[in-house]
C-alpha cells in the first residue's frame, strides 16, 4: 500500500512537471513590474459546463497605496446585472439594444454571482457584513456592487487579504459574457474590488452603456473543467494538470493587467501565429472553429499587421501572448470584446473578401484596446471616449494604412466605404446629444453613447488632423501611451498631451468638441459671377475677354467654429484656395477676373469629417447629373423588380 501510494505521488509529480511550463507573461525584452500593482488575485475555479456555473475560491491581496487608511472596500459583482430588475436590464430595455431581452425577460438571460463567504485575514468572517449599494442610481434591486466595512482601517502602505468563496451562474451569452452551447466566455465573473481614484472609491454599478474600470496587479488563476475542453485566458498558461477524473486543471498567470477573462469550448480549433515586434516575439493564439476556416488566415494576418502598426506608431506590446477568440455562430454577443491580452473577434463562415468589417475591423478595434484600455487604463464608466473613441480613431488609421483610406471598410462589387466614413455615419446619428466629457453611463441612450463615444471621438480626432497634422497627432498618441501606460489617466491628461505635442493650446477646440455639443456645419451660400460692366447695354460676353466680378459667400451654419479651407474654381482652369477661420457667421470673397466661377467648395478634400452635412459644402454652376441619374437608375430598377416580384400573384 505504501509503495503504491509513493508510486502514485511520483507519477502525479512527474505529470505535473511534464505539463508545467515556466513561462514569463512578458515578451522577451520586457521584465516586470510595469505597473503599480495594487491587487494580487489568486483564484481557484471549477467550471460545470452542464449548469454553466463556476464555484471558486478567491484570494485578493490589496496593497493600500492610497496614502490614507481604508476601512471600507467596495466590490463589483457584475454577473448580478443579468437579472430582470437590475440597472443593466432596466437601461437595456429602455434603449432597446438588448435583443431578446427587450420585450420580455428570458430566463436564459439570468446570471448571478453569490458570495458564499468573505473572510479578511486577521479580522475574520465578514460574510454578514456584505451590504449591497447602488451608488449611481440608488436602485435597491441592483446587486452589482457590494461593500464591506472593516472593524479597523488598513493603514497606508499595508496589505489586506480577502478570502472569498463565490458561486457564479452565467447567462446565455449576453453583453459579452456567458455561454452558447458548449462555448463559454467568462468575463466579469469574479468579485473584483473597486478603484481608489482621485481621492475616493470608484466602483460603479454595471450599466448597459458603459464598461469597466479596475486596478493593475497580478492574476494567478486555476480553472478546472472537463479535459476535452480547450481553454484560453488572459496571460499565459503555466500548467495543465490531468486530475484523473475526467477533468483537467489549467493554470494561468498574468502580471500588470487589470482584469482576467477566459473562454472554453471542446470544439475550439487552435491556430497559432506570431508577431515579431520591437520587444521580441509575441505569440498569437487564435481559438476558432472549423466552420470559420476561411477566416483563420485573415485573423492571424490582420492581428500581425495591426500589432506592427501599433508597435511602430504608439509603442510596444509588452506581453508574451495575445489570445484572439473567434466566437461560434449564434454568439454574436460574445464578439468584439476586449480584456487584457485577450480579445474576441467576430466573423461568419461566408465573410466575403473585400469587406473588412468582419473579421478585420473588429480585430483591429479589439486589439487597439490592448493600448487604449488595457495599458492606458482609463475609466470606461466615465470617459468611454478615451478608450472606445481614441481606439476608433486608431482603428481608422490602421485599416486605412492596410486597405487604403477610401476602401478601408468595404471594397467590393464596385462599392467603397472608408472606416472614417463609417465612424462619421455613426456620429451623424446623434451629433449633438451628449458632450464627450459627460460621464458616459449618463448619456441619453445607447444610440447616443455609441455615436458620441465611438463615432464622434474618431471623427473629431480625424478633423483635428487638419489643424495639427496627422503626424503630430500620431506623435501625441505615442506620447500619451508612453507617459500613461499602466496608469489611469483622465481626459484632461489626454488633452494636455495633445496640446503639448502640437505645441499649441487647443482649448478652443476641446471646448467645442469635448466639453460642448456644438455642431459643425458650413455651407456655400453663393458663388456666381457677373460682368463688371453689367450696366453697359452693348456688352457682349466673350470667354477670356470679358471681366467678371465673382462673389463667393461662405456661411457657418452650425455653432461649431472651426477653420476651413475653400477652393474656388474658374472657367479658365484657375483655382484658388482660401482659408477662413470661421469666427464670423459668414465671409465674402470677391474676385475680379476674366473668368467666371465654376464651383466653390468648402473642405474640398473631405477632411473636416465633423461637418455634419457635405451636401451644402459646395456650389457648382453647372448642373451635376451623374449621381442623381445613377441613384435614380438603381431606384427605378428596385421599384420595377418589386413590382415584378408582386406580379407572381397574377
Amino acid at each position, binding site marked *: 500500500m505504501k509503495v503504491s501510494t509513493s508510486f502514485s505521488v511520483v507519477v502525479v509529480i512527474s505529470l505535473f512537471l511534464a505539463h508545467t511550463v515556466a513561462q514569463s507573461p512578458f515578451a522577451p525584452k520586457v521584465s516586470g513590474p510595469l505597473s503599480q500593482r495594487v491587487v494580487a488575485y489568486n483564484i481557484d475555479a471549477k467550471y460545470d459546463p452542464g449548469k454553466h456555473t463556476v464555484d471558486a475560491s478567491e484570494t485578493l491581496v490589496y496593497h493600500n497605496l492610497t496614502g490614507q487608511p481604508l476601512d471600507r472596500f467596495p466590490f463589483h459583482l457584475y454577473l448580478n446585472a443579468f437579472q430582470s430588475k437590475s440597472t443593466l436590464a432596466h437601461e437595456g430595455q429602455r434603449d432597446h439594444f438588448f435583443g431578446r431581452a427587450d420585450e420580455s425577460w428570458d430566463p436564459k438571460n439570468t446570471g448571478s454571482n453569490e458570495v458564499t463567504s468573505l473572510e479578511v485575514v486577521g479580522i475574520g468572517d465578514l460574510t454578514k457584513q456584505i451590504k449591497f449599494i447602488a451608488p449611481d442610481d440608488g436602485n435597491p434591486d441592483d446587486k452589482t456592487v457590494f461593500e464591506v466595512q472593516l472593524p479597523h482601517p488598513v493603514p497606508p502602505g499595508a496589505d489586506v487579504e480577502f478570502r472569498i468563496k463565490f458561486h457564479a451562474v452565467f447567462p446565455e451569452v449576453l453583453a459579452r459574457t456567458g455561454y452558447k*452551447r*458548449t462555448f463559454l466566455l467568462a468575463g466579469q465573473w469574479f468579485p473584483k474590488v473597486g478603484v481608489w481614484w482621485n481621492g475616493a472609491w470608484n466602483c460603479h454599478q454595471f450599466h448597459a452603456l458603459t464598461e469597466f474600470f479596475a486596478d493593475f496587479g497580478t492574476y494567478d488563476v486555476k480553472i478546472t473543467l472537463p479535459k476535452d475542453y480547450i481553454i484560453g485566458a488572459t496571460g499565459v498558461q503555466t500548467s495543465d494538470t490531468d486530475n484523473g477524473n475526467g477533468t483537467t486543471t489549467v493554470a494561468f498567470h498574468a502580471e500588470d493587467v487589470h482584469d482576467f477573462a477566459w473562454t472554453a469550448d471542446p*470544439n475550439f480549433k487552435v491556430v497559432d501565429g506570431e508577431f515579431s515586434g520591437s520587444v521580441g516575439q509575441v505569440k498569437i493564439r487564435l481559438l476558432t*472553429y472549423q*466552420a470559420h476556416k476561411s477566416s483563420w488566415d485573415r485573423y492571424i494576418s490582420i492581428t500581425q499587421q495591426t500589432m506592427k502598426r501599433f508597435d511602430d506608431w504608439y509603442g510596444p506590446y509588452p506581453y508574451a501572448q495575445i489570445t484572439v477568440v473567434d466566437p*461560434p*455562430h*449564434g454568439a454574436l454577443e460574445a464578439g468584439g470584446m476586449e480584456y487584457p491580452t485577450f480579445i474576441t473577434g467576430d466573423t*461568419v*463562415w*461566408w465573410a466575403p473578401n473585400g469587406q473588412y468589417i468582419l473579421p478585420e475591423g473588429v480585430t483591429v478595434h479589439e486589439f487597439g484596446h490592448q493600448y487604449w484600455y488595457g495599458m492606458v487604463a482609463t475609466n470606461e464608466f466615465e470617459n468611454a471616449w478615451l478608450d472606445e473613441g481614441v481606439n476608433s480613431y486608431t482603428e481608422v488609421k490602421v485599416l486605412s494604412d492596410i486597405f487604403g483610406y*477610401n476602401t478601408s*471598410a*468595404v471594397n467590393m*462589387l*464596385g*462599392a*467603397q*466605404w472608408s472606416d472614417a*466614413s*463609417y465612424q*462619421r*455615419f455613426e456620429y*451623424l446619428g446623434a451629433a449633438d446629444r451628449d458632450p464627450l466629457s459627460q460621464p458616459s453611463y449618463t448619456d441619453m441612450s445607447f444610440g447616443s453613447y455609441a455615436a458620441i463615444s465611438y463615432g464622434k471621438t474618431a471623427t473629431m480626432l480625424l478633423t483635428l488632423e487638419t489643424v495639427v497634422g496627422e503626424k503630430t497627432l500620431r506623435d501625441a498618441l505615442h506620447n500619451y501611451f508612453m507617459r500613461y501606460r499602466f496608469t489611469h489617466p483622465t481626459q484632461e491628461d489626454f488633452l494636455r498631451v495633445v496640446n503639448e505635442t502640437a505645441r499649441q493650446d487647443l482649448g478652443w477646440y476641446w471646448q467645442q468638441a469635448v466639453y460642448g455639443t456644438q455642431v459643425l456645419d458650413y455651407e456655400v451660400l453663393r458663388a456666381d459671377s457677373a460682368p463688371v460692366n453689367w450696366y453697359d447695354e452693348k456688352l457682349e460676353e466673350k470667354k477670356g475677354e470679358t471681366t467678371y466680378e465673382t462673389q463667393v459667400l461662405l456661411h457657418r451654419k452650425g455653432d461649431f467654429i472651426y477653420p476651413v479651407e475653400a477652393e474656388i474654381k474658374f472657367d479658365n482652369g484657375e483655382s484658388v484656395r482660401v482659408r477662413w477661420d470661421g469666427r464670423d457667421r459668414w465671409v465674402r470673397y470677391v474676385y475680379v477676373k476674366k473668368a467666371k466661377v465654376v*464651383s466653390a*467648395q468648402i473642405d*474640398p478634400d*473631405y477632411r473636416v469629417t465633423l461637418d455634419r452635412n*457635405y*451636401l451644402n*459644402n*459646395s*456650389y*457648382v*454652376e453647372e*448642373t*451635376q*447629373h*451623374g*449621381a*442623381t*441619374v*445613377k*441613384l*435614380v*437608375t*438603381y*431606384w*427605378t*430598377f*428596385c*421599384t*420595377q423588380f418589386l*413590382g*415584378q416580384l*408582386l*406580379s*407572381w*400573384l*397574377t
Partner: protein
Amino acid sequence: MANDGRGVFGRGFWLAMRHQRILWWVFAINLVLGGLGASSAARTLAQALHHSLAGQKLADGFDVGMLLGLAVQPEVRLFSHTGPSFLFAVIYLLFLLFVMPAIISVYYEDRRFTTGEFFAAAGAFFWAFVRLALWSLIPFVLVHLLWHGARELADYIDDRAVADQASFYILVLGFVLVLLLAIWARMWFDLAQVRSIALQDRAMRRNAVRMFGFARRRSRKLYWSYIGIGVLVWIVTILMVVIWTKVPPRAVPLTFLLLELIMLAQIFERLWQKACATTWYRLHPEPAPAAPEPVGFEPVLTAPYAGSPGTALDVDVPLSPEVEGAPDITTREPEGPKGPA
C-alpha cells in the same frame, strides 16, 4: 397523351416570341411605373445634388458613406421615399392582373388582337382573375408558412449545431423546396387561368379545383418547363449582374441597359411560362366538365379549338401535331375568332 409533352418549352417560347408586342408593352409599363416610383426620390436627389460636388463620390464610384450620409440628412431622408415605390409596384401588380386575361386570350387564340379586343378580353375576365388571384393566396400562404417553418427549423438547428453551415443548408433546402412548391402552385393557377379563358368559365373556384387535379396528374413535363425557364432566366440575370459589376462607375447608360435587360428577362420568364401553360392546355384538354353556369353577358372571345363553351375539346380528338390530322398549332396562321360568339 404520353408523347405530347415534348416541345412545350420551345413552343411556349415561340408563342411568347410571336406575341412579343405584349412583352414590350408590359416592359414599358413596368419601366414607366418604376420611373414614377423613383420620381419622388429623384426630385429630392436633384434638389440636393444638382449644384453640389458631393455627388461626385457617388458618380465616380459608389461611396457607401456618402449614400448613407444622404440617407440621414434631414433635408433628404432618402429612404423616406420608398412609399411611392411600393405604391407603383402595387399599381403594376393591378395592371398585370387587369391585362392577364387578354394576354392568355392572345396566347390561346394565337393571333394578334385589336386594341379593342384586347381590352375587352381584359375587362371581361378582370374580376374573375382577381378572384382567382385571391384563391391563389391560399397555397401561397401555405407555402409561406412552410418557409416560415423552414426558418424556424434552421433557427432551432442554428442554436444547437456546432457547425455554422448546418442551418444555412437547412435554409437552402427549405428555400428550394418552397420555391418548387411555389412554382407548382403558380403553374396550377396559370392552368386555371387558361382553362377559364378557354372555356369562358368565370367560376374560378371550379377552375382552380379542376386544374389542381389536372396539374397534379398530368403536368410533370410542364412543371419541368417552368423550372427550366426559371433556371435559364436566372442564369441570364446572374450573368448580367456579373457584367454590371465590371461596368465603369460613370457608365450609367450601360448600367441602365443591363438592369433593364434583367427586368426584360424577368418579365419574359413569366410570359414564357404563361405561353407554355397555354400550349400545354391546348395539347391536353381535360375531360368534359359539367356545363358552366350561364354568364350574364355575351362572351367576347372564344377558343379556336373549342366546339362551344362548356364542351371544350373532345378528348378523343388528338391535337398533338405529331398525331396525324391534328392542326399544327405552332405554325398555324392566325385566324379570326371562331365559335358561338
